[in-house]
């Protein structure tokens, strides 16, 4: 594959046994890079969506009282407070069935609210760009409705976002390690090639070949091997991504909302083999130039 890039070569680099393993190593590294990059991009989308979805919303919770007949009175009092707050665009009392559904992952299936005293939850949405002091709102609500609380989601959101950022940092580190490993492997392979073909390189040098002429033969070879290995890694990585996407799709969308790759994410992932091949090409070229620079 990609042998057309080699054209005519004065050095028999295509017969080097030591470089035969390079496409497989690059394939493995691109496979890992595809997974790391896809994971990073997906988590980035998830974090953005969580952030957008939760900012500007809050939840008011009214604990159930011992006398259930008081609950409606307490709810109306809370709604009055909310209605008098300018920053609030709209609010909606969650139905018992929706509250039960939210509790289902922790408490299992519950037929109706008679089996369990349920808190009353109010979904609140702020005006776009409006700033609300949730602590002050909580104090106003508590004064009218003892046992009420306000959750602006920031605490758990920050924890989740921090978790995602940490995973993203790790994925970035994996990509950096992959880049370093590619560079190291190509340097090793190129140096071995320089040693194996020392005699031929010396002849080329003595008949007047510029360093760039010799380096070009190594860099073309590295590009060819890099593209071969890179696309092999991509061919292995894409089905893996699709498989992971399928498994995630079967999970509850609450924790992993819309975990999928957008079109531009696929483009970025598809460019990885080319990126790795270019890294291999540039590394080979610089290694040869550096080595030849020590000759007269």
């Amino acid at each position, binding site marked *: 594959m990609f042998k057309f890039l080699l054209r005519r070569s004065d050095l*028999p680099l295509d017969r080097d046994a030591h470089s035969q393993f390079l496409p497989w190593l690059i394939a493995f590294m691109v496979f890992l890079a595809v997974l790391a990059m896809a994971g990073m991009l997906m988590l980035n989308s998830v974090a953005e969506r969580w952030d957008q979805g939760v900012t500007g919303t809050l939840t008011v919770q009214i604990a159930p009282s011992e006398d259930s007949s008081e609950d409606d009175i307490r709810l109306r009092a809370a709604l009055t407070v909310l209605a008098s707050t300018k920053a609030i665009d709209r609010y909606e009392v969650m139905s018992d069935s929706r509250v039960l559904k939210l509790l289902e992952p922790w408490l299992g299936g519950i037929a109706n609210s008679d089996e369990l005293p349920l808190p009353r939850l109010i979904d609140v949405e702020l005006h776009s760009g409006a700033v609300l002091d949730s602590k002050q709102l909580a104090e106003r609500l508590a004064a009218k409705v003892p046992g009420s609380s306000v959750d602006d989601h920031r605490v758990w959101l920050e924890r989740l976002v921090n978790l995602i950022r940490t995973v993203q940092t790790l994925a970035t580190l994996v990509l950096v390690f992959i880049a370093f490993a590619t560079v190291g492997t190509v340097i090793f392979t190129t140096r071995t090639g320089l040693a194996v073909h020392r005699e*031929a390189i*010396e002849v080329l*040098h*003595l*008949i*007047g070949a*510029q360093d760039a*002429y010799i380096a070009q033969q190594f860099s073309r070879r590295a590009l060819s091997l890099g593209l071969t290995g890179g696309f092999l890694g991509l061919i292995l990585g894409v089905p893996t991504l699709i498989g992971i996407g399928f498994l995630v799709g079967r999970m509850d969308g609450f924790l992993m909302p819309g975990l999928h790759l957008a079109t531009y994410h696929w483009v970025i992932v598809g460019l990885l083999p080319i990126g790795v091949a270019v890294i291999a090409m540039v590394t080979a070229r610089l290694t040869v130039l550096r080595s030849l620079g020590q000759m*007269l």
Partner: protein
Amino acid sequence: MEAASDEAIARFENVGLRYGLGPEVLRDVSFALPKGSFHFLIGESGAGKSSLLKLIYLALKPSRGLISLFGNDIAVTPRQKLPALRRRVGVVFQEFRLLNHLSAFDNVALPLRVSGAKEGLVRKHVSELLAWVGLESHMEARPPTLSGGQQQRVSIARAIIARPRLLLADEPTGNVDDVMGFRLMHLFEELNRLGTTVVIATHNMQVVERLGHGRLLLDEGFLTVKPPRPIPDPAATGKDLISDGEKKALAVAEAAAVADPFGNFPGDDETFGDPASLENYL
């Protein structure tokens, strides 16, 4: 031979060379190679002939002294300009140093390709030159499948394909018989006649004595320059430089070589082409 002009192709001034911390193999070497000159570089084995040639074709740096090639002081010439100087020097290496994985054609084409010649031009010139050295039917052959003489001709073709101004040959007669040795020498003389400055390292004193060109004599690292001289007449000097056995072969070879330096020799199927075609080429 063309009259040597005053312009020096290469100039050495008090050049010394040592390998690592070892003793100096070349000491205070000073000489100039006038344009169009022909010199034999002679000396015992280990006298430093190959080292001196390596300094000329820029494979080594001197430990001290000044080397000037085509008017460029090598010590101050930027490294990236050295390949251009090397391209003006053709070298016939002692062990040929052909690239065994390449065909005869590709070996000869190397100097043109490294200088960026277009492939059409490369094909034309290499085919012509290989035909001229009698290897048109071996263009695709790899060096290991060629005889020593054929490899040598590939090596010579590679050395002259880029029309060098200076041709260096390290022991070109070391691996061939006397007949072929004489033919090679006449070939080098022909190239010299066409304007190429030539330096031949050899320890074949018979050839040196019979051709009478200028000599660079190396002895224990010191160089002495001897000017060209008339070809000695054995009858006058009473000295025979060659054995009786060699004399017969050489008489045949030399007579044929002088008459036609590129022609056939009795019993030899290795031929050079018409000198006129070389003249056109160079």
